[in-house]
């Protein structure tokens, strides 16, 4: 897939944005210089992009994150370098935005500049196995809330439906109708289906635009 200069990943809380963002950034860095992953998550106190700091460094991806992420400073802090995402147009950026509309408010500060430059994608990451987005209707509700908060329109859908360690080929296959319906009702293209790499191998030829992912390590 052809990445725009800025790729924004938004979605319902817990839809898998952080893991997807890390994988995308590492993937893009294979044939791009100056790749940045920006963690604008002001919602989640645990399990952040910094958990993958070593992998990112190794891949040559620069991590822009609040110095308070994963610390005890319990405030919705944004990284001071977030303005470089819009000021320095030589960068290719993956932006991990916090969940729901509350997380998307963080984008409001730079959304004007993003709209003006107009070289961005904003993807709605969906997981039909999350309890508050089990169907297309509830997913669209959250989608509209996020668009309003971010003051940017979405440009595509990424199906990241999974049941964590219990994900198998059937888990993903039985989410495709849901993802297509979200795509049809929103009028936005389904740009990819992201799947853990072992499961992805079982799905080759069965699903278009597969994006195999390496899962972030968990502490326990």
């Amino acid at each position: 897939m052809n990445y725009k200069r800025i790729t924004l990943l938004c979605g319902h809380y817990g839809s898998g944005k952080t893991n997807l963002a890390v994988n995308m950034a590492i993937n893009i860095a294979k044939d791009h210089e100056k790749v940045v992953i920006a963690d604008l998550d002001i919602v989640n106190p645990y399990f952040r992009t910094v958990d993958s700091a070593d992998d990112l460094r190794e891949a040559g991806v620069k991590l822009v994150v609040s110095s308070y992420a994963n610390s005890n400073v319990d405030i919705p802090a944004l990284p001071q370098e977030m303005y470089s995402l819009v000021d320095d147009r030589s960068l290719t950026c993956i932006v991990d935005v916090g969940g729901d509309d509350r997380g998307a408010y963080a984008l409001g500060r730079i959304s004007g500049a993003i709209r003006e430059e107009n070289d961005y994608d904003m993807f709605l990451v969906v997981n039909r196995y999350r309890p508050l987005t089990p169907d297309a209707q509830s997913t669209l509700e959250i989608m509209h809330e996020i668009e309003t908060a971010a003051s940017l329109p979405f440009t595509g859908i990424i199906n990241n439906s999974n049941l964590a360690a219990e994900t198998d080929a059937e888990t993903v296959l039985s989410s495709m109708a849901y993802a297509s319906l979200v795509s049809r009702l929103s009028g936005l293209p389904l740009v990819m289906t992201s799947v853990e790499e072992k499961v992805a191998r079982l799905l080759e030829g069965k699903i278009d635009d597969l994006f195999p992912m390496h899962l972030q390590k968990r502490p326990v």
Partner: protein
Amino acid sequence: MAEKVLMKGNEAIAEAAIIAGCRHYFGYPITPQTEIAAYMAKRMPKIGGTFLQAESEIAAINMVYGVSAAGKRVMTSSSSPGISLKSEGISYLAGADLPSVVVNCQRGGPGLGGIQPSQSDYFQATRGGGHGDYHMIVLAPASVQEMAQLTIRGFELADEYRMTSMILADGTIGQMMEPVSFDFEIKEAPEKPWATTGTQMKREHNVVNSLYLVPDVLEAKNFERYEKYAMICEKEALAEEYMLEDAEIVVAAFGIAARVAKNAVNAARAEGIKAGLIRPITLWPFPEKTFKKALGTAKQFISVELSMGQMIEDVRLATGCAVPVTLCKRAGGMIPSPEQVYNSIREAAGKAGE
């Protein structure tokens, strides 16, 4: 919801409470349990329930008192510093024999401490926290599935014994995501003839109160309550036993620490060390019988905790200090690694440095 869903531990608690028939939730935000309140805020209005963000933890626990007195299932949740604030109300609930469910998604302390996971409220949960002679039933989940299961069990036990059930979780289990099934058999809440629901001029009025004007009446009430506690100790203690049959080194750990400890036990077994695990699921009542049984083969117990050593006292009491009990710990929001626990087991087995 027959199909599995992917949930955070905190969300699983909230959904389980709703499934258990809880339609009243009062709380005040605090990391790392805020998802419970956020989930309730979204769901309760859609099912005719009440979500209220109170002005403080103290207000929230007293709202719990009110709803419970009216005979309805009710829950509040917080994290360590907030539970300290709720402790007065919890004591009042105990003094009035009111059922409730209180969730503590623990973080590092004391004081404001930090937002990372901890188990250092074990004493507070099992020894009181509030004032007076009382206990709570304390349930310690070790997975997101158990967050749901034990929340439902918490409501049942609370109603059956007219007590507070505390779900003693920690930040990691609250924040981590795992698949959950909500395929539960739900027992209806029992009749509550004591509830203050209006007399309809057909009965004497009910009084819910924790104030006793005559000391020997208050003493009798305490005696009666402790007979109930003794029965609960007999009937409700629960633990998971893992590779205990021939275990010489017995690791004791609950919640998130038990997940780490299980990996370490497996590693030790692979090396031929006879290690096993007791995972208390009820912390009060403490599963003493399981520990006594393990004494048959145990040469040493190791208590693994995210605290400076609190449950270790109950392990010593349960085993009568018949064999050494040592501690393997991290504190202040840190989690022991499987290697750390594994090394403690090797040391106990006399293999340190080999």
